């Protein structure tokens, strides 16, 4: 398993480097995460580690939740999330009840951050899919933000008299899982369990985030990670 943790978005700030460059940073509170379940090939048919984040009062949890976390010897946790491992050997590195902190990311220069984006409600095609809309003038009336034509029988090609499936149209936007890849790690504060990454991350403040070492780096970043 690549180093993976659960965290919470705290907010954005700025960070000045010693040369005076201004870096926009997002502050993420990462961990400590408890290992609440260890899944192996023999017991579960696949390999994974389940982490819990943020202790809650037992009365805010469910009996099932309390029992599950008690097996790992930890207090009930607010969020649980599984992280897949390649084989049993990787799972073996984790023990039930172990606590993982942000120092698991030590030496990692780029991370992927997974979160749930802010809900935008029912949005038009311009906001949702960056359509250009129609003309501002030239006789356009009441249709300036319209998506335009959505196709005719001739262009449906095998879909009969129906509109093509997946046609980009207005609808619910946001409130979905978004992965931001290869964000720069600006600094890690092990004492306060804080991680500073460059740029924004999905979701509102106080939203939960899943953080893992970057899995797909393009060449310059891969070289930087390798320390060359």
């Amino acid at each position, binding site marked *: 398993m690549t180093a993976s943790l659960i965290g919470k978005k705290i907010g954005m*700030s*700025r960070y000045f480097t010693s040369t*005076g460059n201004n870096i926009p940073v997002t*502050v993420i509170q990462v961990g400590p995460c408890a290992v609440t379940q260890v899944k192996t090939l023999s017991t579960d048919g696949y390999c994974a580690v389940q982490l819990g984040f943020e202790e809650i009062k037992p009365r805010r949890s469910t009996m099932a939740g309390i029992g599950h976390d008690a097996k790992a010897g930890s207090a009930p946790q607010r969020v649980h999330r599984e992280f897949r491992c390649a084989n049993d050997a990787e799972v073996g590195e984790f023990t039930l009840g172990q606590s993982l902190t942000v120092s698991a990311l030590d030496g990692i220069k780029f991370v992927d951050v997974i979160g749930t984006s802010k809900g935008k409600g029912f949005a038009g095609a311009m906001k949702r899919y960056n359509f250009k809309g129609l003309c501002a003038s030239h006789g356009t009336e009441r249709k300036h933000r319209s998506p335009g034509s959505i196709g005719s029988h001739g262009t449906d090609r095998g879909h009969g008299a129906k509109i093509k499936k997946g046609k980009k149209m207005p609808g619910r936007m946001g409130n979905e899982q978004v992965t931001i890849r290869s964000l720069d790690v600006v600094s890690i504060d092990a004492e*306060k369990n804080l991680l500073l990454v460059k740029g924004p991350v999905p979701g509102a403040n106080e939203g939960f985030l899943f953080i893992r070492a970057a899995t797909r780096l393009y060449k310059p970043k891969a070289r930087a990670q390798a320390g060359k």
Partner: protein
Amino acid sequence: MNRTEIIEGITANQLKTDPVVNALKIGDTIDVHYRIVEGEKERIQVFQGVLLAMKGRGINKCITVRRIVANEGVERTFPLHSPRIAKIEVLRHAEVRRAKLYYLRDLSGKARRLREDRGDAAAAASPAPAKG
């Protein structure tokens, strides 16, 4: 600890502790010593003008300074806590009754001058301008 406190906690060591910087007042005439990096070399440029406005708080605090160059108003906004600001010197305090002096933009000639506040000046200017 709430979110604001966490963010203040991590930015605290980046804030300037210079008493001159922390005692800036709207209407002050100030010298901003700004580091300019040109490739390898670095030099300091001084921008002198009236402190027109302060915006933001904590590490995001910015100052807007206005000066007149060749009869043309020039305004620059600096992030106050940027390490690029080498030093700030206060030359003169002024008696003003606004938090933002945007009305100065519409004034010209003698009307543009601010009345100097001498009472406070002696007390505030006494600490030597330290490096920030």
